[in-house]
């Protein structure tokens, strides 16, 4: 069995502090937000974009002739870009948590069936008009509820008399994810309205095309709260990542922590899927990349990963708008196109321990 030379693997790795990286990514995220607003099919000059942003932020005024361009910048591009950052951050945070929870670096909300579960709820609202009584909250509430239900189902099915093992969770999640996708597909094809069916397909692949300011607060608050909670539990996640018995011996009851993680994962995933559809690869890739930079300690991974996810998704969305402009690609296609080769490259480089030694 080939054993990687340890000194070259770890000695050069920076494990001291994530602070410079966090600061750098925060600056990069701000710059990316501005770029995300500045780049688009409608050619609006950078000077104007900045002027509109400034006017919007400070409550200033714009000339009547600029009203159309201002609306594009402030009412269409900005909420979309901000929402992209929120969704990217949420997916990266939840992906990190799920990987620690099932102790497998190849897991994310998709593998556990949470995203496809949430998509069922979202499509029930779009295509069947379910939960109409909840008004504008119907979509988020339904996606969240079905994400929770999917998690609970995966949890219940994966349970055995000997407890809950990560492998059973992953296998159950994968199997049920196919089932949820089938349900969504049936709903799409059963729907009479052709437009709705196309929109639902867009949801399955992920898109930020429908972003409005109204969607931002709930998503931002949920993602921020989920991130904060995970940061508080970062050390416990380290213990859980070492094994259930190790966690128990360190005073972290693994069953209780896992149930908490289920709830947080469902809440963040449901909220995120409700506004962006099922965007893949961000939750899987970003934690990997971040671990290569800062090591496995969740205190550092959780400080860095959401910022990295936010930057990644803002740029993926920019590409989705520009590549075939004026037509738009689903953003999930971009993340997959970026994610698959990056993933294969990482595996081939072998500079990262995947655990199956």
């Amino acid at each position, binding site marked *: 069995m080939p054993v990687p030379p340890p000194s070259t693997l770890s000695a050069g790795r920076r494990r001291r502090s994530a602070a410079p990286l966090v600061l750098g990514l925060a600056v990069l995220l701000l710059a990316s937000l501005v770029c995300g607003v500045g780049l688009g099919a409608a050619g609006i000059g950078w000077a104007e974009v900045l002027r509109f942003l400034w006017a919007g932020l400070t409550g200033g005024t714009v000339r009547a002739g600029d009203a159309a361009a201002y609306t594009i910048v402030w009412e269409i591009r900005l909420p979309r870009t901000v929402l992209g950052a929120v969704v990217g951050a949420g997916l990266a945070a939840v992906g990190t948590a799920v990987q620690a929870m099932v102790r497998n*670096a190849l897991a994310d909300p998709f593998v556990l069936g949470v995203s496809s579960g949430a998509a069922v709820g979202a499509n029930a609202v779009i295509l069947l008009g379910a939960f109409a009584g909840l008004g504008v909250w119907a979509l988020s509430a339904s996606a969240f509820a079905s994400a929770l239900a999917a998690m609970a189902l995966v949890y219940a099915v994966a349970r055995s008399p000997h407890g809950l093992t990560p492998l059973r969770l992953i296998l159950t999640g994968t199997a049920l994810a196919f089932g949820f996708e089938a349900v969504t597909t049936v709903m799409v094809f059963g729907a009479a309205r052709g437009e709705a069916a196309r929109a639902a397909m867009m949801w399955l692949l992920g898109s930020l095309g429908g972003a409005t300011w109204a969607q931002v607060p709930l998503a931002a608050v949920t993602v921020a709260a989920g991130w904060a909670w995970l940061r508080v539990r970062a050390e416990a996640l380290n213990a859980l990542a070492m*094994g259930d018995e190790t966690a128990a*011996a360190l005073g972290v009851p693994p069953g209780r922590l896992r149930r908490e993680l289920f709830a947080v994962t469902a809440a963040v995933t449901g909220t995120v899927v409700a506004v962006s559809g099922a965007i893949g690869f961000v939750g899987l890739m970003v934690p990997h990349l971040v671990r290569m930079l800062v090591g*496995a300690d969740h205190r550092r991974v959780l400080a860095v990963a959401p910022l990295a996810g936010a930057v990644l998704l803002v740029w993926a969305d920019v590409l989705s708008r520009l590549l075939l402009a004026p037509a738009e690609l689903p953003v999930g296609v971009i993340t997959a196109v970026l994610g698959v080769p990056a993933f294969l490259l990482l595996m081939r480089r072998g500079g990262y321990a995947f655990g199956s030694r």
Partner: protein
Amino acid sequence: MRLDIEDVTVEAAGARLVEDIRLTVDDGSFVGLVGPNGSGKSTLLRCAYRALRPAAGAVRLDGDDVHALAPRAAARVLAALPQESSAEFDFTVAEVVAMGRLPHRERTAAEDRAICAQAMDRTGVGHLAGRGFLALSGGERQRVLVARALAQRPRVLVLDEPTNHLDIAHQLDVLSLVRASGPTVLAALHDLNLAAAHCDVLYVIAGGRIVASGPPHDVLTPDLLAEVFGVRAHPVRHPGTGAVQLLFDLLPPTA
């Protein structure tokens, strides 16, 4: 600190894994738990470090039921080396050792660093601090896990086959390390000679029940070893230390 296991019974999927186990580890002593594979050693130890809740009975630390304590409070006095070694993520040695500080409250980063450095010095893994845990040899890993347990500053240490997969030098090394580090120890051991040499008291478990207990030379009799382990044992004196050591044969086929 004294560890008492009182009439502990564990059930899983309708089967009784261990039944009415009564076992005492006096303050500062090193108690060994020996028994054939599947006899319930690990199950019993899991009850002590709270990975399992017994169906009946109690595990007490100086009289307090560990399952009634807050999880972190229990982990501040009792540390464990579980047998599992599923390290999916490439933590560094320093990070693994630092996990031992998790149960402690109102700690400072400086204090944690000092305690971890001391634990790593004592187990001789200080030079590995920046290395990846997954890339270590079996012996190095076990020393690192002992360091993590010591960083927990426990008063009771529970070890589940700590010498598994180690070569003979590392086996002796890990046990003397634990012995020298002070706390009360309860260890499941599969090597009877190691158990005889290192333990003050041995408990023999078979089929989920304690079948014998006492000082090693009283317990490890040829009759008991034949009955419990199915081997013929020949006790001999160690020419250097005088300790009782055992040589083994298969039992002659019974007519």
